[in-house]
Every structure is written in C-alpha cells, then in structure tokens.
C-alpha cells in the first residue's frame, strides 16, 4: 500500500477548505483569543489564532531562557 502519495489529493475526494478549517481551527487544545482571517472582506473563520501565535512565542522564549540557564 502506498502510504504517502506526494500529492495530497489521492486519499479522498478534495475536501472543501471551509469544512477543513471548521475542524482544524474550530476544535482545539489549549489556545484562546481571536483573530479573524478574511478573504476578500469575508470573515473566513473566526479563529483562535492569536493565542496560538502567543503560545509559539512563549515556547520560543522559554527555550531561549532555558538554553541560557542550562548551557
């Protein structure tokens, strides 16, 4: 069985991006806060990405501090 086709269309018929984002961004783990991604003036999804970005930042800072502290 070919587990990983290079292109991503083979596994199932093309899913609509909106349906996908409804799920990939709507459900979630530890994040909160909102920014709105819009396309041509239409709110695409009201996504909780702001804190997502913040969490990446926190992670990077923690790592930087950790390195300084333990190196």
């Amino acid at each position, binding site marked *: 069985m070919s587990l990983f086709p290079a292109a991503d269309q083979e*596994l199932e018929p093309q899913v609509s991006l909106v349906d996908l984002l409804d799920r990939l961004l*709507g459900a*979630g783990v530890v994040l909160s806060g909102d920014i709105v991604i819009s396309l041509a003036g239409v709110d695409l999804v009201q996504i909780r990405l702001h804190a997502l970005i913040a969490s990446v930042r926190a992670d990077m800072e923690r790592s930087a501090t950790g390195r300084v502290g333990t190196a």
Partner: protein
Amino acid sequence: MSQTGKYLYAVIRAPARESLTSGYGLRGQPLELIEHRGLVAIASGVDLEEFGEVGLRHNLEDLSWLEEVARVHHRVVQFVFTTTPAAPLRLATICVDSEAVLARLAALHDEIDAVLERISGSAEWGVKMYLRIPTPSSSGQQPSTPRAEQAARTGASYLQRKRSEANQRKVGEEYAVEAARSVHTELSAVAVASRLLRPQDPKLSGHPDKLVLNAAYLVRSDREQEFVTRSEEVLAGQDQYELVRFGPWPPYSFAGLDDA
C-alpha cells in the same frame, strides 16, 4: 540556516508503529515520534522562520499558504488515524524543539489521555443540510425530474410552477429549521457525541443553497453503517433538501481538551 521547530499533528497512545515514520509532513520532512509516559506526539521539523511567531502571523493571512498547511495537516492526521486512535492537534501547533514537546505532553498528559479514551474506536462524520433555493435559471436549465421538464414547456404549468416555487420558499424556510433539528436529533441518536458547527458563508463554501445544518458526529465504528443508512433515509422524499455527508474523519471536533 534558521532554527528548526516541531510541528505537531496528533497524539496517540504508545506503542506507535514504526511505520508511521515512513510518512512525511510539511515541506516533505519525515514524521517523528516523540514519546512521554505512554503518549506519542506525531511531529515533523519546520523552519521557524516560516512557522515561528513572526512567520505565522504573516502566513496565516495568506489563504494559499493556509490551505496548503491545512491539507498536509489533514493528510498526516488521516494517515495516523488509519492505524490507531489519534487526538488531532489544532492547526499550527508548534514547539521549538523536542524538549518543549515533552514538556507539553507532560503538562497535558491526563487531559490528552482522557480525550484518547473518549474518541477511541470512533470517527467523526460531517453532515451538512441545505435547503435548495430554486432560481429561474436553475429550474429552467436543470429540470430535476421529467415531470418538471414537461411542466416547463407549457404556460399554465409555468405559472403553476412559479407559484409552487414561491410557496416552497416561504414554507420551506419555516420548516427547514425544524427539519434540521429533527435530522440532528435522528443522527445524534446513533452517535457517541455530536456538535453543531458554525454556519458557513456561502461565498466561501461556494454552495448557493441555504445551509440549515452544519454538524459533526462522533460515531463508533460498529455503528457506522447504521449512521450512514440513517443519514440517507432521514430526508427521503424531501427533495427540497440536500444532505452532504463526509467521513470517516479523525475526531477533530471532539478532541478539544476543554470537552474532557
């Protein structure tokens, strides 16, 4: 070269199949397994210039970038999910390194474990129900039945058809909400859990009809057939509605830690 971080796709229970590392994630990077106390995060390396705070802020506004990342994310999670119960992580969950992944797994161990317990043996099915909006052009060009085709050819039938269309619109909108609720109840009865999702803007979904139900159902694998059958029968004979079903998918809508 800029710093490399870890992009996380999903968390599964140990032991993870070695074959998972034969898969590829974003930008063609091989999948990695990062294990902590019986949980395994599926990750791959990403360039933090692209996926760090600054890069993300910029890239998330780029729809084609977002689409590509979303599709790869989905593909990887599907790939993992075909072999084992998997708790998908939200799009663009990124840690600076493996240690940070371990720290996150440690901090959320019990919550993630509870999610895996809940979704084990089940998959997500999406159901969207539309109320068909008849338009003059669509009913003229695409008669849905031979009878409609015949009716379109005569004047009296034309008037009758227009009247019935107007009626259908008015009555339809009133009943659609009730019908959607009843469909949701019917389908929820076969599901472990269900969730109503946001209505979608027709400009984005590309679907001209009125979306009256956008829902996700967590269905046990041994009830899948029943769910499918019921979804096919629930609107039988009601041609004013269209029901779109997709699945089985990884349990995206049911993996939120806050539900645990």
